[in-house]
């Protein structure tokens, strides 16, 4: 029989991670990559894929050492270290949520309701996100298990139909990108997949708990599928717009959808309808950050009350997203923080449980 235990299956894990990955990567990476490495962005994606796989292997090793999830492992570690770790991760989640909410709101306004106020769009989004966050991981996994084919089939169809607009001439590089540019692009790709870090918390939520290797394999498949989709999308975008135009576009994937003409199709333009793909995928990632942010706050404060912390996360996200929109320095600070501090720390943090585990022995 079914038990209400906030545990999810491997299929749900795969689908959840796939949606967490697809949204932001397909939305912002093509522009960034076209700007740094142009046509060679394809190699950046592949390099990012390799970085991601290595990171996942590393996380698998850490999970194997811990034999449990990070929450459970850290509950026996020193108070200060624990608080520092959770405090930093909470800040990181708040920053990411704010950034995602801002991107989300901009995307909605640009593609669907240009005249509507930024604050209202953001508030509506956070209201639904708040409802979803309090439902827990089980509910989130169910939503995305149901949505899976409803999102992927239209996406594949649209990618297929957009092949018509690809012009091979655009694959000829306009400028020669160096290895440094490709590596920079690879790091950018990896930056978009730092969500992988949350795998460390997942053994607590998956069924069966002992399935560490299966967990890594599910996430790995989700990651590889996303890299495949990203690669296909980037090639189509390059072939349709060329690297020069692509580097200047805000959300090129959405623009691509507006150019797609389906043979025998009834609707004239599909970009508004296809916005659903990014709505649901970005929503998944926003929810993930809100959910873990609330968890980190709870662990850091040491006082239980998940709904209270979810509320705090929502307020902070709202404020940050407003800052992102109306203050020039904040987006710049965000990018720099994650470029120089956030991402390197996410590589180093998993070593803490390994170190504390060894010390305990």
């Amino acid at each position, binding site marked *: 029989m079914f038990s209400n235990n906030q545990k999810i299956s491997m299929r749900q894990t795969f689908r959840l991670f796939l949606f967490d990955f697809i949204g932001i990567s397909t939305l912002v990476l093509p522009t960034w990559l076209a700007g740094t490495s142009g046509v060679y962005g394809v190699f950046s994606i592949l390099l990012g894929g390799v970085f991601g796989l290595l990171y996942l292997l590393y996380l698998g090793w850490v999970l194997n050492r811990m034999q449990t999830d990070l929450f459970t492992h850290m509950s026996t570690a020193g108070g200060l270290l624990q608080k520092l770790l959770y405090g930093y991760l909470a800040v990181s989640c708040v920053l990411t949520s704010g950034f995602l909410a801002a991107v989300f709101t901009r995307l909605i306004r640009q593609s*669907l309701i240009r005249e509507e106020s930024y604050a209202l*769009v953001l508030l509506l989004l956070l209201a639904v996100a708040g409802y979803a966050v309090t439902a827990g991981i089980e509910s989130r996994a169910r939503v995305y298990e*149901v949505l899976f084919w409803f999102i992927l089939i239209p996406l594949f169809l649209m990618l297929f139909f957009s092949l018509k607009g690809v012009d091979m001439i655009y694959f000829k590089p306009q400028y020669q990108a160096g290895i440094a540019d490709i590596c920079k692009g690879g790091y950018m790709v990896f930056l978009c997949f730092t969500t992988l870090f949350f795998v460390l918390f997942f053994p607590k939520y998956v069924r069966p708990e002992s399935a560490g290797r299966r967990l890594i394999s599910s996430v790995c498949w989700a990651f590889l599928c996303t890299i495949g989709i990203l690669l296909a999308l980037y090639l189509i975008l390059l072939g349709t717009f060329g690297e020069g135009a692509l580097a200047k576009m805000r959300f090129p994937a959405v623009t691509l959808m507006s150019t797609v003409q389906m043979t025998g199709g009834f609707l004239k333009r*599909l970009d508004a309808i296809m916005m659903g793909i990014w*709505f649901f995928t970005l929503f998944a990632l926003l929810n993930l950050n809100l959910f873990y942010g609330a968890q980190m706050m709870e662990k850091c404060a040491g006082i239980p009350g998940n709904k209270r912390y979810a509320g705090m996360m929502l307020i902070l996200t709202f404020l940050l997203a407003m800052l992102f929109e109306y203050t020039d320095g904040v987006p710049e600070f965000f990018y720099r923080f994650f470029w120089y501090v956030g991402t390197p720390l996410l590589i180093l943090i998993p070593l803490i449980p390994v170190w504390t585990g060894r010390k305990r022995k």
Partner: protein
Amino acid sequence: MEAKTRVSTDIEKNIEKYKQIYADCADIKMQEMMLGEDQDCKCFLAYIEVVINNTMLRNTALGRCIGFLAKLPQEKKGTLLDENAMGIADISWFENVEDAAEAMLTGDAILFVDGYDKAIKIADEGYPNMGVQESDSEKVVRGSNEGFTDSVKVNTALIRRRVRSTRLCVKELQVGVRTHTNVDLVYMEDLAYPHILHEIEERLGKYEIDGALDSGVLEQLAEEKWYSPFPQFQTTQRPDRAAMAVLEGRVVLISDNSPIALILPTDLNSFLKTSDDYYNRFEAATFARLLRYAAGFFAMTLPGLYLAMTNFHTQILPTTLLLSFQEARIGVPFPAALEVLLMEISFELLREAGVRLPGAMGNTIGIVGGLIIGQAAVEANLVSPIVVIIVAFTALCSFAIPNEEFAFSFRILKFAFIALCAWVGYYGFLLGIMAVLVHLSRLKSFGIPYLMPFVGAELTDYEDERDSVFRYPLRKITKRPIYARRNERTKLKKKE
């Protein structure tokens, strides 16, 4: 608790107490009679008027009993009554007058015999009811036409007629401190999870209620999330549907005086199935299900989507279609949102009026409302023809949902979608879909996720997915759904 009065061998005391209990009850008939060989044995018969058939007294068990007593020698009556020497099938004895008085309310007669220290309950025709009739809310093209009645006993018999197994259990409960309504839980002993039975009993026992006059009252008291627009119990008026549920390991709750049985646990998929899905070939059943799923979606979202497309995202529609929409709206003084809202409310009013009015008049109101008023409203330029089409199509979709309670949840949500889409267009639609999905993902019916088998399907080795939107050929559906005990999942196998 008040002390009960034991049935006395002195019949006068019993009569006095009985009359005291039923003072000012004109519908209770109390008859004193002198029976026995020499008319020296005083008897007292009490029953509810109408439930005991006076003209048929000779042929009934009660008639036989009175005839038996008339010939009975005084000294043997105690022993013979104790041994049920009259050969009456449905007879019970009570030692207290109060218990006997209460038992009479089930529609049976109570007999006191002088010198005998027990009251005898003898079943007769029982309360009048409409008898087994055709189910009018769950019509099928193929399959039985029988529907449940108001009598709990008839309803359980209708299920047992279909499931002739010794493992079919019927547990009787009483709900309502004043109505003492009989509630039967019907289940297969070896298939249903015992904890579900305990849970429903616990939930029903949680409240002390004056009366439960319909299964709907029990449903509302026992559901987990009272604020959800989605029903958490499946309802049916069809004995074959209930029998099917019992065979799946689910529990059927039948309440006296209600022709609607509750099935638990349930999920979203069950609400979109009908009995004849299993009687028809799999292609037909799958096609019908696909239609119903699409109907459910459009019943909730179509008016909202129309508003989003025409008010916010006109670039989606082909120019010719958009122009024809625009032309149709020329002269309409209201904004599109108000126009849709007015038409939807008018339609709901018509539906409500049609339901409340007597049969023939109900049909008339449908024709008057749908055709005449609709036509007049279009000609008067109050609404555009396209909105009439949208509202009519939405209504058609909601009628295609086989369960009325489930369809109602879509009807309610439709207004939320209209509001959201009128406000923020397609963004509102997406937000609404997300909120509904999150809500559905949180819902459970007795521990079973509402979105089964679309979620957690690996728990049943993906077997439950074979009977969801697509109905596999019957010979491929070999397992019972998740409701049945894990070790009792096989329902079909080839003979060796």
